[in-house]
């Protein structure tokens, strides 16, 4: 399994490591040279060391394998994905710009709706969105920020252009993998960390804590912050527990909290009731409060929305923030950025067709075999059609779905996602990947250095989701000095 860059060929795709066979990109030059010097045995030994490290920590991931709906350990590839700091700084700015505009947009939607009266976003789109929550109208979260934690998925097309593929403004997950991946590569390639300037990622929990603390309705030195989980059977439970532990916050379930007559939230402790200031909730909107949303929810807290609206507790993300990660709204984000910030978007959207528009819909229906069709309100790759890989029957089914409910669908060209060298058995081969950076926003904005790189391990596959044969890589933002 020796790496020979001259025979490594990503073909028509943009490769993150090399610019052409035999020629590593500037920021990746040192690591490419280093990897090439390793013998097959040495490289194998590093991968084994990584697998062992994962198995050790793996207990924490694989324990749920007996129940249903439980995440498995992700395969991890030791070859890091390299992004030069210079490029990253620009992406960071772009993400901050995007989050700022999206938060202004959400706040506007729940107040004056100027964006609608000014004709930027059609009224029908909002009134028809199931993520627009009437229960949130006129609410004013601190700093007017609604989406405090965002995971935006970035992809790179053939020509090297980086696009935002989608924004996850509800309860994005994966950040714990980002941190774990780094701790593994540090064990596997310590010498590279000594020689290169690779930006750290393990300060995320500290930033998360500071951001959450800034939301506290009571100006205290030590606000009571809790992480609210749906419980052990949630696939991201490990992450909830991990973040709570790292922040020194209590990990609570709905049943641990109660809203008293004073509209404040309390947790039940062995000392009695204790007031809670900030809830980092990893429970979806509809289950948050049986009084306001789904009556049958056992995961939530009765009266939580009352307490939140009264300003007695902060919820991160705020309920209703999901209205802005609707796939149809996504197509308006460039206009939204322009409208609120009077700036051009730094990171472009993937060009998209809206099926609600007659002309665009007709184009989509005529070109289904070349397009990716996405429903407005699903995540994790569910309910999606990848035209070029679908059968005629599947395409026919989608054509009907689109005609029946055009508002619910958008279409995008099938992108040629960029690749990076990945260990596949005895060889190193190009595999497609994406990137999920995490953005924190309150009165300040923080963007992770890099994020979670997800890689499609099956040859030729473009699907990076863990449930569908995806794995992950560590992401290195490398400072090569100079400009």
């Amino acid at each position: 399994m020796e790496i020979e860059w001259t025979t490594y060929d990503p073909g028509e795709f943009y490769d993150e490591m090399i610019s052409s066979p035999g020629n590593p990109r500037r920021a990746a030059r040192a690591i490419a040279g280093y990897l090439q010097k390793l013998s097959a045995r040495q490289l194998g030994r590093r991968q084994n060391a990584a697998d062992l490290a994962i198995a050790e920590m793996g207990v924490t991931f694989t324990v749920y394998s007996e129940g249903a709906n439980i995440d498995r350990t992700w395969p991890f590839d030791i070859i890091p994905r390299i992004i030069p700091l210079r490029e990253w700084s620009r992406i960071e700015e772009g993400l901050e710009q995007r989050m700022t505009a999206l938060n202004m947009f959400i706040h506007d939607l729940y107040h004056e709706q100027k964006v609608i009266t000014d004709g930027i976003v059609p009224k029908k789109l909002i009134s028809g969105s199931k993520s627009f929550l009437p229960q949130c109208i006129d609410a004013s979260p601190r700093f007017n920020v609604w989406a405090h934690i965002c995971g935006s998925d970035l992809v790179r097309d053939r020509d090297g252009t980086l696009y935002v593929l989608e924004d996850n403004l509800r309860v994005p997950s994966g950040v714990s993998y980002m941190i774990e991946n780094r701790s593994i590569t540090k064990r596997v390639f310590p010498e590279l960390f000594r020689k290169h300037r690779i930006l750290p990622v393990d300060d995320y929990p500290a930033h998360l804590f500071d951001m959450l603390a800034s939301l506290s309705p009571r100006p205290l030195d030590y606000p009571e912050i809790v992480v609210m989980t749906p419980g052990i059977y949630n696939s991201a439970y490990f992450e909830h527990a991990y973040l709570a532990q790292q922040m020194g916050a209590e990990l609570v379930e709905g049943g641990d909290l109660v809203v008293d007559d004073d509209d404040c939230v309390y947790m039940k402790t062995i000392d009695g009731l204790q007031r809670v200031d900030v809830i980092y909730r990893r429970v979806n909107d509809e289950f948050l409060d049986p009084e306001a949303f789904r009556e049958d929810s056992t995961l939530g807290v009765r009266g939580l929305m009352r307490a939140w609206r009264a300003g007695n507790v902060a919820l991160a993300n705020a309920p209703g923030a999901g209205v802005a990660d609707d796939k149809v709204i996504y197509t308006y984000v460039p206009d939204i950025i322009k409208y609120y910030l009077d700036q051009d978007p730094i990171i472009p959207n993937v060009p998209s067709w809206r099926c609600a528009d007659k002309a665009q819909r007709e184009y989509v229906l005529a070109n289904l075999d070349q397009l990716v069709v996405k429903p407005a309100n699903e995540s994790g790759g569910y309910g999606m059609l990848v035209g070029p890989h679908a059968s005629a029957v599947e395409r026919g089914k989608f054509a009907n779905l689109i005609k029946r409910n055009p508002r619910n669908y958008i279409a995008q060209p099938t992108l040629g996602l960029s690749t990076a060298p990945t260990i596949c058995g005895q060889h190193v081969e190009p595999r497609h990947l994406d990137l999920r950076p995490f953005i924190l926003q309150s009165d300040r904005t923080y963007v992770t250095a890099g994020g979670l790189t997800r890689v499609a391990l099956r040859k030729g596959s473009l699907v990076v989701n863990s449930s569908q044969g995806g794995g992950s890589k560590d992401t290195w933002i490398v400072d090569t000095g100079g400009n």
Partner: protein
Amino acid sequence: MLSRVAERLYWMARYLERAENTARLVKVFSSMMLDLPNGVGLNWRQLVDVSGAHEYFDRNYRSSGERNVIKYMLSDTNTHGSVISSLAMARENIRTTRDLVPSEGWEHVNELYLFARKKLTGKTYLKDRHEFLSEIVMRCQQITGLLAGTMSHGPAYQFVRVGRNLERADMTTRMIDVGSATLIVPGVELERLENRLWTYVLRSLSAHQMYRQYVRRRIQPDQVLAFLLQNMVFPRAVAHTLGEIATCFEDHLPHSEEPLRAVLRLQRLVAEADAEKLHAGGLHDFIDLLQLEFGNLHQLISGTWFSLELDEAV
């Protein structure tokens, strides 16, 4: 500390202790059945009675032969008393409180459960029962030791300690109840039989050696009884477990007045017991009374720390 978490740690410790004690019980009982002559009046059925769930047993099993009783005690997943259920419950409780327990604690409990499940699905445990049960006991003790040695002894640990000791007190009294069985074998002197029985009771609690060191006399039923009820330093003696619980309440946990009062009452009850008289008659009723009080104590613990008033109103 969250009430829910306190409750789970308490139950984790109880179930872990229960698994260990049930394994001890079956192990010693098995060997006793081999040693005592047939027809002494001791049978497998008594194991069911000790477990306190004879109604469940009678509903679900046709006869109380060895095979059925062993299955019920070890691998029946429908009752909380079996080894496998206890381990499953211990695992479930520790798995949801992992942020407070050292990660090795979780790993060992998880592995122990997987080990027991694997062993108990085959029928082999009937053959290598002794080794299997010894391993269960040893691994449970390892986990208890691990928690004692690596967990900060703050409130979280105190709930583990309370759970462990209450469960222990409960099992010790159940074992004493076994000793109260009347044995009749024609031609064999009653006293010798009885002494042998009490030796087994001591063994099942790992108390034989400590008894010898402490009492320095041959096994005598009333002495054994006094030792198991009233000894302050033997960890499985009822008086000792109650002392442990009282310390947890008094020194470490908030708002403990009511449960503490209940423990003090229990301590007095045990201290004032007259072993000689009890042995002569009324032992079974006395044990019943103690178990009733343990249940009562559990209710007070639960009401004080686990389910807050407001909870019921909501």
